[in-house]
């Protein structure tokens, strides 16, 4: 089993070899944002999935190979877009600062 990338979400119980994982943390001024929403958009900017962040500001998606956009929405903040490349068998870690 693979361990978590330092500082990221634990990957216990996830078969990393079969998944293209995109995960990370939303921060505001260095502090975790626990009430943000992170959307995963495909290469044509079409919505694919959305998750609320955890209390520690973390999020995770099981994507597919290719380029994706993470769009983060949070109270009293403008949406923030971040590009990310996912591939099966690896974990793409992204820090989003709002």
């Amino acid at each position: 089993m693979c361990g978590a990338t330092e500082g990221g979400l634990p990957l216990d119980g996830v078969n990393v070899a079969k998944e293209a994982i995109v995960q990370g943390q939303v921060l505001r001024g260095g502090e975790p944002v626990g009430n943000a929403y992170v959307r995963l958009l495909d290469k044509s900017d079409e919505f694919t999935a959305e998750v609320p962040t955890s209390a520690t500001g973390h999020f995770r998606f099981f994507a597919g190979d290719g380029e994706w956009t993470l769009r983060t929405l949070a109270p009293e903040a403008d949406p923030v877009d971040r590009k990310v490349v996912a591939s099966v068998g690896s974990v793409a870690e992204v820090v989003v600062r709002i």
Partner: protein
Amino acid sequence: MSRENSLVSTQWVEDHLDDEKVVVIEVDEDTTSYDKGHIRGAIKLDWTTDLQDQVRRDFVNRDRFSELLSERGVANDDTVVLYGGNNNWFAAYAYWYFKLYGHQDVKLMDGGRKKWELDSRELTDEVPTREKTTYTAQDPDLSIRAFRDETVEAIGVKNLIDVRSPDEYAGRLLAPAHLPQEQAQRAGHIPTSLNVPWSKNCNDDGTFKSDEELKALYAEVGIDDSKDTIALCRIGERSSLTWFVLKELLGHQNVKNYDGSWTEYGSLVGVPVALGDEPGEA
């Protein structure tokens, strides 16, 4: 139906928090979401335990639904306002479910839990107590629910609207990308079904687009107004949202939700399946 009869804003909900005849109910994909904070006075329905038969793959029956709402203190003449996370996917599913069992006055909170949170409105962990009622559900209204045989027969005949993401429709993913891709059934879509991802109905904050934008969306994809329509997704929750748009907001007649959806169709033996981005032939 119309937007005025079926949809309320977050502000409307805040203004009616102390109205005894308004019952606010949270229904979330993440069934622990309510426990981490909810709208004051809101009760919870768990779509996995409260709304599903625990043995067969089906709804709870009419008697059980009556018992459930009686236990939770919902009366037949209450205004039920549903909201939830994930852009109201499961709240829309519950809306369709309440309609199926004949509840008259049910509404969705536009934007759901996300809009409420993005508005920085208050959440509480206080669980309300409601007096029990004697709720009587109606016989299920099967004019809004499609089953598998009817769906197979609809290929090339009715409007089939597949509301999953383009990658699920094409067969490149088996489930929404926030869920592990671990199902065993075939990927792809029903031949002749049109892909109109549910998300095209909504703004980023989860609220529905205007009627004009929604009409333009379905005109553009070539939905045939003269035909009946069946909406589907993976397990029938996202397609409930599209059912809501077509039936309740835009007033289309004869719109059904196929809650068996791809998890059923994609496991059937001997039915046609199309791969790729095009609808395919009947």
